[in-house]
């Protein structure tokens, strides 16, 4: 197979080296233009994300490893001293790596979904630069398909893997859709904003923000399209909300008090209290009612750990799907490799046939001529089929793929064993009649 990969990722290179190797879109376009005109290269594509910079190549002949490293350093601007961090993979190994990348199995956060979009973008960019050939097109499309397949057939991308997204997952487990839900955000620091951003992305549009510094609360309220309320929040605010997120730096609980407890007791709909602060902001006594769910940072860490463990288990099944796609690509490649030879063989035989039929045209009546056409076509189809089957078999076994050796094999084995036997059998049957 003529597929090569050189690249580095979070496993082989430090952040500093990854930063040096990272390529911006204009740099990728320049590199693709350079590669598409290079000798010994039929196709190229470049994937550059925050965790990896990989160059996929389809060469006429495989490059040696040093040449590939020099090329990689030239394209990315990586100092040659750091080139040791790059890995070189070829053929099936390169394809396996590409499919694992698409499936999220090679990601820092196992099963993450962004990589699939990044891979699609890399492919689109390479296509736009007319830098790909049919092998690379097929490899990239197959990898994207495999990535989707893995996510559809396993739970590798399911479950939140950060505290902020775990808060959203918990809210969705309780309320279902978050559109139309009302959220009281207590605090305007980084943690509070992160959780709020995730909830905002999940469809929450109705916000009240309570913060000790009103100016900061206003900034967050403007970002989320909510309104500012007093600090600490009152019982009316908690009664209004479906979800309370608290993440302040206060030394003692701020969502607390007899009035608050009374409001929680009186309410007749579920309330989710998410306490992301240490020390805690929400009085645990508020979880008095069966419809009130109180969660703290420790609970979310447990949820994230459970989700990661579940993803690790799903990764084993994902690897099997990856292998299936790699094997299918290899089979396609083997078939693809002999296709030009078979086409050439067909053209040669067809020329010979036509020439012979035309040369003998006068000797036959129009009816006999039509029969001769059919007979000669059938004959070359059989010969062609016999040689093509040998070529395909040789391709599977990585044998000599020349036409001459395929013909030699066909005449040595099949003609004698199968073809001649068939003819003899037919003659015997005709003799009986």
């Amino acid at each position, binding site marked *: 197979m003529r597929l090569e990969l050189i690249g580095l990722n979070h496993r082989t290179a430090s952040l500093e080296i990854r930063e040096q190797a990272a390529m911006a879109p204009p740099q990728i376009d320049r590199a693709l233009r350079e590669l598409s005109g290079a000798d010994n290269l039929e196709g190229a594509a470049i994937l550059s994300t925050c965790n990896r910079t990989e160059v996929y190549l389809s060469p006429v002949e495989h490059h040696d490893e040093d040449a590939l490293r020099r090329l990689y350093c030239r394209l990315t601007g990586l100092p040659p001293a750091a080139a040791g961090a790059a890995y070189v993979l070829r053929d099936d190994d390169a394809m396996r790596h590409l499919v694992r990348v698409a499936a999220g199995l090679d990601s820092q956060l196992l099963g993450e979904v962004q990589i699939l979009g990044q891979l699609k973008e890399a492919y689109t960019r390479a296509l736009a630069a007319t830098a790909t050939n049919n092998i690379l097109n097929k490899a990239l499309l197959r990898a994207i398909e495999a990535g989707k397949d893995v996510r559809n*057939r396993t739970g590798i991308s*399911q479950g939140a893997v950060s505290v902020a997204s775990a808060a959203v997952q918990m809210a969705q487990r309780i309320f*279902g859709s978050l559109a139309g839900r009302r959220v009281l955000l207590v605090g305007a620091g980084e943690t509070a904003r992160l959780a709020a951003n995730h909830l905002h992305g999940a469809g929450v549009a109705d916000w009240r923000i309570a913060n000790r510094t009103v100016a900061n609360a206003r900034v967050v309220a403007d970002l989320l399209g909510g309104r500012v309320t007093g600090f600490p929040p009152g019982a009316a605010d908690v009664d209004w909300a479906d979800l309370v997120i608290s993440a302040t730096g206060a030394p003692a609980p701020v969502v607390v008090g007899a009035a608050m407890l009374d409001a929680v007791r009186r309410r007749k709909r579920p309330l989710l209290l998410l306490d992301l602060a240490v020390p805690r902001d929400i009085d645990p006594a508020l979880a008095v009612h*069966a419809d009130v*769910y109180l969660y703290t940072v420790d609970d979310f860490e447990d949820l994230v750990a459970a989700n990661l463990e579940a993803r690790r288990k799903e990764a084993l099944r994902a690897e099997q799907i990856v292998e299936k796609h790699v094997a299918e690509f290899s089979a396609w490649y083997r078939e693809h490799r002999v296709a030009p030879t078979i086409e050439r063989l067909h053209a040669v035989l067809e020329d010979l046939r036509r020439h012979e039929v035309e040369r003998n045209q006068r000797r036959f009546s129009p009816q006999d001529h039509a029969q001769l056409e059919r007979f000669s076509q059938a004959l070359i189809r059989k010969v062609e089929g016999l040689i093509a089957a040998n070529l395909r078999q040789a391709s599977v076994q990585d044998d000599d793929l020349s036409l001459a050796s395929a013909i030699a094999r066909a005449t040595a084995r099949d003609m004698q064993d199968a073809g001649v036997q068939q003819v003899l059998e037919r003659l015997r049957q005709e003799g009986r009649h």
Partner: protein
Amino acid sequence: MDQWLYLVLPQLLLVGFGVLLGIWAILLRRTDLGLEAVAIRFGWLAAAVLGVWMVALAVRQRQLPILNPGQLAFFLAALVWFGQCYAQRWVNQRLFAVLPLLGVVGLMVLGLVSGLHPGTVTRFLVGPEVAVHASLSLAGVALLLGCGVFATGHMILHQQIRRRRFDAWFQRLPSLGDLDRLRRLTLVTGTALVVASVATAMIWTSLRPGEEATVISHLHPMLLLAALLVALVVVDRRRWWSANGLAVGCVIMCGVMVTLLCVSVIEIFQGRGA
């Protein structure tokens, strides 16, 4: 023809639903969205075949499948499955499809064991008014069984969230909000249908004065059921209990309903109506 309608097709349906149960049982153990889509499509196909069989049976015997306990079990199984397919359109049931399927397969086994061929039909079970009453009643029961299933799901998920158990039940059940919404919807609609079925029975009684004693004896359990259901609906509308409390109430009500339904069915086929 009778052999096909009363034996072969019902057995094939049981096999089909058994396969469907097997697929969903596999999906309990692992995530596979492709297989899940196949299971959902297969579920729709099974519902369509079940519907065609019921229509053919109704045409053949000129009455809905209510002529013996076996037919009632199949009729109820069909309604439960139609309801499940309908609910699936609004809320992804995911692994929760297993519970209705267990009910459907159980009812089908019960139906086949007790036999589907009606033999000699009593006059009591013939006529359009019986068909209307029985259809309303069974549709109501099917919805209330669905209500019990959603309430069970609510109880399970509530416990998982409270106890911080982040397992497959936590991950794959519909959300508490969806389960509560479906539970309330099925409770209110099911109650309305049961009340309507009792009302049609009353009208029927007035139209057939000679059969008053038979009908009223069968209606006693149904009247009690209707009264209990209305009380539960009032509690639910007023939100006097918590969502989980209401879910527990619905599960208990489901148990009571199945008991009263059995009493009612025995009364029809073994009691004065037989």
